[in-house]
């Protein structure tokens, strides 16, 4: 978890902290951005921020650190994201906790406010998305709610910049937590009392809240209490076990129902719903997108215009032609070559910068001229789609299908993102529920999902050989399904379950999409540019020292066994650094007329399947550990070679190409 620590201001005084908590998709990240001016990726997709973002904000000339937490449904945590969010409440003791919730679902979400107040956390309630709830005709009496809860309650529509000043004022004038006014049933109160009395330590959360978490068998809270109670823990644990056993049939349910009852009383007279449910246009579009009869055609339209037309034709075609073809080949490269040659007299060093594998003429040209436009257009497409709220709908549409390859519909997001950047997608697999699902997703991303850069180059490469593109496409699809089905069969563990909140569909805001694309691009370039430069340097070294020649000779029999000329070895060595780099190498070979259609297809399939780029391998190692990453790496390499071999034989035998 990348957590930046900003504990002190420049003049050394302690910084006050405000933490944003709440259900997924209620506008926490938008509020964070509005308060800090920094940008976190805001998405209309439940569960995309696993990382904790921090930023500073000056409120009433006092510096506050704002902490944005992943979405949580309850302080009794279940998922990894929820645990991260609670850690912040437990370990960082924020001075103010902003509980952000969705006005339309006040009743459901207030259950967590109750928990936060009960824990004696310094809560301010932000009732967000007021604009949409008003449009739906829901009336909320915030003053009455404030009186009943005993904490500041603010109405806001952060996406429309409404209520921000009120929130800042409330933070600046905050006066400590409320007295707990919520009483449970006599039976539960007795149980709480019995456990609470045995607790002697000093805690961040109230003993009442901790007791309830203990009774819900929260392992982490057990550890926390064990550490602080010392000798008294044995008696405490025995008591908790005793009560938990007595109420084993339905403790969770009873507690939820009691809270629901408290909330019901709280909001009676506070919320007024319209007589008739207002069906908005967004809801109608939403309906179209989830019915298979209309949803599948809609998906195809989205893919055709988004991926094929926008990313493929515009990004990989028009823009690449201008940048790579015109700007680099005709203008920049000749100029920079002349410039470097004039500056540095030694040919060997000249080679390093402007030679065949030069840092500038190859590394920089690939990165900026080819990869940048493709990836940028893809990220615009992806960010736009993400903000509309389409992905959860896509997820439910494919869930049945994905279950056959061992994943739930949720995994469709990393898979689609993989078409942009497999490395980023591998990081996103951590939002999947089970380890089993994460490993299968990581494997499929490494093996069968070509990233946008690679896809662009391969499409360009194969489009010149009719039929080749189709063979390549069918191969990739079949191998994806085959490996998925096999992995689902072989991998031990429970099949995944699928559940997902569907956020309302919205028209994305232009600035949001652009900033999001920008942040992703920034990340992408920080990640890949050093690799491109490293690759150029290593290739140059290999060429200068003659090691390269030896490698090519060593790999010639391997290449020959799958029917490829020895020059393709270069592309495969490139491919180790980045798959698209390798594919671009094939592009050069094809331009020289060294390969026929069959060889091109075999090479493209093998290279697409082949070892992911170095960056992806490193992320795989970080996310899944050395053992799994190495196993996947080895499997992928062997499988790629095997598939290339089989495909070559098949093509020779049938003479299709």
């Amino acid at each position, binding site marked *: 978890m990348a957590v930046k620590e900003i504990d002190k201001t420049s003049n050394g005084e302690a910084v006050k902290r405000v933490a944003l908590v709440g259900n997924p998709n209620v506008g926490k990240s938008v509020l964070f951005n509005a308060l800090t001016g920094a940008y976190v990726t805001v998405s209309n997709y439940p569960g995309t921020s696993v990382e904790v973002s921090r930023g500073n904000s000056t409120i009433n000339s006092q510096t506050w650190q704002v902490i944005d937490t992943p979405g949580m*449904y*309850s302080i*009794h945590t*279940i998922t990894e994201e929820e645990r991260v969010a609670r850690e912040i409440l437990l370990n960082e003791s924020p001075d103010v906790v902003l509980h952000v919730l*969705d006005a*339309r*679902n006040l*009743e*459901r979400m207030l259950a967590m406010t109750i928990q936060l107040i009960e824990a004696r956390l310094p809560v301010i309630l932000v009732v967000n998305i007021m604009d949409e*709830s008003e449009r*739906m005709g*829901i009336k909320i009496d915030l003053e009455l709610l404030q009186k009943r809860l005993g904490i500041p309650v603010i109405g806001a529509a952060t996406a429309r910049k409404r209520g921000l000043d009120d929130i800042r004022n409330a933070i600046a004038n905050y006066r400590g937590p409320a007295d707990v006014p919520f009483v449970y049933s006599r039976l539960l109160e007795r149980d709480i009392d019995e456990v609470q009395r045995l607790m002697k330590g000093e805690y961040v959360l109230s003993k009442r809240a901790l007791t309830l978490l203990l009774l819900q068998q929260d392992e982490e809270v057990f550890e926390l209490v064990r550490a602080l109670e010392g000798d008294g823990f044995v008696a405490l644990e025995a008591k908790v076990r005793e009560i938990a056993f007595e109420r084993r049939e339905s403790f*969770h*349910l009873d507690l*939820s*129902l009691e809270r*629901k009852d408290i909330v019901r009383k709280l909001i009676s007279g506070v919320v007024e719903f319209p007589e008739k449910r207002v069906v908005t246009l967004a809801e109608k579009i*939403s*309906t179209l997108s*989830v*019915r*298979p009869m209309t949803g599948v055609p809609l998906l195809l339209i989205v893919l055709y215009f988004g991926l094929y037309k926008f990313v493929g034709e515009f990004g990989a075609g028009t823009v690449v032609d201008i940048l790579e073809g015109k700007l680099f080949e005709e203008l920049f490269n000749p100029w920079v070559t002349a410039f470097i040659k004039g500056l540095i007299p030694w040919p060997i060093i000249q080679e390093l910068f402007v030679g065949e594998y030069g840092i500038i003429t190859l590394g920089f040209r690939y990165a900026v001229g080819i990869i940048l436009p493709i990836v940028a257009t893809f990220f615009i497409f992806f960010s736009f789609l993400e903000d509309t709220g389409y992905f*959860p*709908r896509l*997820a*439910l*549409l*494919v*869930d*049945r*299908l994905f*279950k056959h390859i061992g994943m*739930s*519909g949720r995994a469709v997001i990393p898979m689609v993102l993989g078409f942009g950047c497999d490395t980023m997608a591998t990081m996103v697999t951590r939002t999947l529920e089970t380890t089993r699902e994460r490993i299968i997703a990581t494997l499929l991303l490494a093996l069968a999902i070509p990233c946008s850069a690679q896809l662009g180059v391969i499409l360009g490469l194969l489009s010149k050989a009719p039929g080749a593109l189709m063979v390549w496409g069918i191969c990739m699809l079949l191998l994806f399904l085959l490996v998925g089905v096999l992995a689902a069969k072989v991998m031990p563990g429970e099949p995944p*379950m*699928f*559940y*997902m*909140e*569907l956020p309302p569909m919205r028209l994305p805001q232009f600035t949001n999409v652009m900033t999001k694309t920008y942040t992703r691009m920034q990340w992408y370039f920080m990640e890949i540019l050093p690799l491109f430069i490293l690759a150029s340097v290593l290739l140059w070294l290999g060429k200068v020292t003659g090691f390269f020649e030896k490698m090519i000779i060593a790999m010639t029999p391997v290449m020959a066994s799958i029917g490829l000329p020895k020059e393709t070895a270069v592309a495969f060595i490139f491919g180790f650094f980045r798959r698209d780099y390798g594919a671009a190498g094939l592009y050069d070979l094809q331009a020289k007329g060294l390969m026929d259609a069959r060889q091109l297809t075999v090479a493209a399939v093998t290279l697409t399947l082949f070892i992911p780029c170095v960056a992806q391998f490193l992320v795989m190692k970080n996310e899944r550990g050395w053992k799994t990453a190495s196993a996947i790496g080895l499997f992928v390499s062997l499988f790629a070679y095997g598939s290339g071999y089989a495909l070559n034989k098949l093509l020779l035998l049938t003479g299709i190409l």
Partner: protein
Amino acid sequence: MKLTEKAEEILEALWVAVEEEGQAFLDPEKMNIPLADPVYAELSKHALIEVRQGMVHFRPEGRDEGRMTIRRHRLAERLMMDVLNIRGEDGDHRACQFEHLLNEGVDTKVCAMLNHPTTCPHGKPIPPGPCCDEARAQGDLGVVPLTEYKPGQNGEIAYIQTEDSKKMQKLMAMGVLPGNKITLVQSFPSYIFRVGYSEFAIDTNLAKEIFVRK
């Protein structure tokens, strides 16, 4: 009218003999309760039976009462088996004790909970009560898994049935709590339901575990 347990047993035996075995009367010898027993006087006093030539006959009101008594007995048997999972002789024995608690509206609740069963575990018919007729008239499905609903149908969440407490908590956090109103929006390829103003998508396995009623 509150009858003794023994009186209820006689009514049951009489109902079975008359309604299911086609006899005109019940021979008290078969019950091992001699005619001298005060229970017959109790039943006669309520005008449910009459004793003629040493045999027990129904009076019209008694027939209805017998019907409801046998209904309670068989509902109790279903309850033992379906819900409490007590089977065999032990189940029969407990059902006999339990049935006497099922009067004054409790039978209606149990019947609704068991979704208006038509047969007892031994395959004998359970005489329908007014609640069953009403449910049939309304096309009421009773308490069923969400998978049985048609898109657009509304209901109320009755209970969640899952062994997995994590799953249960997840569902409860999403607002799937007994008593909440729920609308099934779509059932294929995944289930979509609405609680309040939020929509959720779940797979079939989860949908099977949410039980709803009209």
